[in-house]
């Protein structure tokens, strides 16, 4: 867990966010949807939506990647920022858009059965 305030932004700076309070250790997702969209693993932590302050949210494009799931990216630079399950009250955020240091460390690998074939996935 990290404490205090976490800040981050997309690559071009059009979307910025602050998150108040602690964040759980991130997970690295190997699913095919994350792989296609990120061109990478999907590495996310999450917090209740009401702990976020988002500036420039008019620049976020939301894409519904499955029923009730949407992914948010910057319309200008394409940075992948958010993953949200409808009506959950929570918002997942990518570790890559957080300002360094994040003080967080991946603790869980998920959807390993769907991993890409061009790398050796970790054992857990």
């Amino acid at each position, binding site marked *: 867990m990290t404490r205090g305030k976490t800040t981050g932004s997309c690559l071009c700076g059009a979307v910025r966010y602050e998150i108040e309070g602690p964040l759980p250790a*991130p997970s690295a997702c190997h699913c095919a*949807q994350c792989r296609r969209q*990120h061109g990478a693993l999907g590495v996310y932590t999450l917090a209740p939506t009401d702990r976020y302050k988002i500036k420039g949210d008019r620049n976020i494009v939301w894409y519904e990647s499955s029923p009730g799931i949407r992914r948010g990216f910057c319309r200008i630079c394409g940075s992948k920022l958010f993953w949200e399950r409808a009506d959950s009250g929570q918002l997942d955020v990518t570790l890559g858009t957080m300002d360094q240091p994040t003080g967080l460390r991946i603790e869980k690998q998920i959807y390993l059965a769907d991993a890409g074939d061009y790398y*050796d996935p*970790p054992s857990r």
Partner: protein
Amino acid sequence: MAEGEKRPSRATGRCLCGAITLEIRGTLRDVVVCHCGQCRRQHGSPPSYTAAPWADVTVNGSKHLKWFQSSPDARRGFCRICGSSLFWEPMGSGRVSIAAGCLDRPTDLRTVRHIFIADKGDFYEIKDGLEQLPHSMMAQAR
């Protein structure tokens, strides 16, 4: 024969929503993982890239492809509908780096190297035993 230029193949790929599809003739470079701060922010985590000459790449649905110039000599291409990262292009090189994640399986590709680890994020370790370079190896390394 140069390293990584040994795989005569034809690959296909697409963004997450399918609005953009790719066909690549000829050879694809081995996969390189880039740990630079720009890639980390744009992809949301360190991306894996292969590469090819533009002349070997056919892009269908290119009206959905949006380019963002991320440095004076390079730009990044993504789908404006679903946000999928597809390309990193060192402009004027005649080559393009292609996000390995958009390729259909089996890709018949392998990851060989990590670059820009001097800029690596603090939220993961690299434990695969592959070569690590502090910066780039060449302009088209991504």
